[in-house]
């Protein structure tokens, strides 16, 4: 079979700029850090050949991974990342579900407009949206200023520089990711089922909870994963909204790399992050496959 450039060019591009970099991260994660430029001593040298490689694999340097287990900072960072990303995702779901529901039940000619309204802020810079929250939520920011001048609070609410700020920040930045899959599921629903439940005497809430909600599981799972996965590796949100004591993997990786210049440890953290993401990504993949075959 002759080689087609339309396949070959992107193939080589992806191999060089996706596969090779990942392999380098993996290789570096098993290397030792060094006071040098670049600041690491590679375990595998390309010139070694297979024999030497095999020996080295047997005596593989797990020192970075051991360091990660020994130092509670890293374990804490992983746990609090999962916790904060999960809490943020839950908050997004609580805001997005009623929103997607309302759009799906809006008059047909309004739906596209409403959906566009939800998506447009997603196009404006992520950084600027997070910055907008700083301006609002700081102790001397607008929310606290307004509440204080209305006489509702005496001391400023702790909205900035803590876990709550990160959770709200995640909810704010990833809202469209949740609304879109939920809307896609809700839009296809046959509303006559809910109407029938109402006719048979169910209250509005009960009809929704027993009839409509169970039909939207797939949209919920897709939305939850679409928010949870990027939120887990988030750097900008914890860095700009969180305090000095808030740990997330993305931020720890950044400071290991730029602050401590420990490239091997940063790579090992990246490998762990990837392993952590593997499960939710596999679920998402199965969902996508099923949608394609339906």
């Amino acid at each position, binding site marked *: 079979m002759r080689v*087609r450039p339309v396949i070959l060019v*992107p193939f080589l591009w992806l191999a060089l700029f996706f596969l090779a970099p990942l392999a*380098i991260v993996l290789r570096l994660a098993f290397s030792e850090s060094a006071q040098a430029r670049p600041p690491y001593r590679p375990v595998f040298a390309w010139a070694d050949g297979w024999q030497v490689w095999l020996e080295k694999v047997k005596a593989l340097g797990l020192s970075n991974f051991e360091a990660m287990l020994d130092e509670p900072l890293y374990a804490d960072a992983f746990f609090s990342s999962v916790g904060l990303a999960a809490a943020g995702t839950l908050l997004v779901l609580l805001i997005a579900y009623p929103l997607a529901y309302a759009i799906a039940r809006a008059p047909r000619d309004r739906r596209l407009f409403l959906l566009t309204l939800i998506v447009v802020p997603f*196009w404006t*810079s992520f950084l600027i949206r997070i910055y907008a929250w700083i*301006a609002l939520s700081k102790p001397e920011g607008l929310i606290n200023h307004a509440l204080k001048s209305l006489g509702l609070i005496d001391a400023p609410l702790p909205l900035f520089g803590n876990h709550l700020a990160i959770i709200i920040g995640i909810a*704010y930045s990833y809202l469209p990711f949740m609304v879109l899959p939920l809307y896609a599921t809700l839009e296809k629903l046959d509303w006559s089922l809910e109407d029938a439940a109402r006719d048979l005497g169910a209250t509005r809430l009960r009809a929704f909870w027993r009839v409509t909600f169970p039909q939207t599981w797939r949209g919920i799972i897709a939305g939850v994963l679409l928010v949870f996965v990027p939120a887990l590796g988030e750097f900008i949100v914890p860095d700009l909204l969180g305090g000095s004591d808030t740990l997330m993997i993305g931020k720890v990786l950044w400071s290991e*790399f*730029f602050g401590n210049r420990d490239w091997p440890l940063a790579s090992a953290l990246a490998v762990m992050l990837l392993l952590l993401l593997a499960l939710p990504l596999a679920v998402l993949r199965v969902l996508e496959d099923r949608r394609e075959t339906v």
Partner: protein
Amino acid sequence: MRMSRFNIVSLVFGIAFLYLPILIVVTYSFNASKLVTVWGGFSTQWYRALLSNAPLIDAAWVSLRVALASALGATIIGTMAALALRRHRRFMGRGLFAFMLFAPLVLPEIMTGLSLLLLFVALDWDRGYWTVTLAHMAFTTSFVALVVDARLADLDPSCEEAARDLGATAFSAFRRVTLPMISPAVAAGFLLAFTLSLDDLVIASFTSGPGATTLPMRLYGQMRLGVTPEINAASTVLIVGVTLLVIVASRLTRRHRQA
């Protein structure tokens, strides 16, 4: 059909949640007072200050050049990749190809940035304008491919087959028949790549070098120091610019749908 009160409240709350913070940034960029919470009257002084802020203007130029070059490259390679995947059902390594093409969509930015930097170090390339451009090309290619692939999926392949039957070469059939049909998706992919590049902080921070500071990197450095009316003004310029781009993009796709 009338909407229930609960639905209206949900809509108003959700949209206010999304738009109020942005609107406040835009409003306060016209504030005469330097204080963030005090309204001191209307003024455009921060926009004038912006124009004389040389490092910020330089960073904006770097960002525009990087975004333009990387979006062009990503559009070409992303479109090729989508075509390869749709047109050729069987070739060696097709599974790997699809994985490599769409996995970057879900890879955390911090991983993309770290891994690309390590590649550039391994290849011993000096970091700067070109490494940022290549890095942006690398991560936006997948987004272009996703958009073009969706359009190709709806396309009737018999049009191109007819052109081939009538004697057109493969390339000319593509250029005269398929390309005009997918061009709105290609344009939308280009705009998506352009805005993603313009917006990126994390990948640029890893892969940039001296003399190639992008606008988000410059803004981020200033934001860490606090909220200032000047950043509000810079943000407003970016928000308006991107919104105009999005309107153009949606016009492009809508006109196509009506046709």
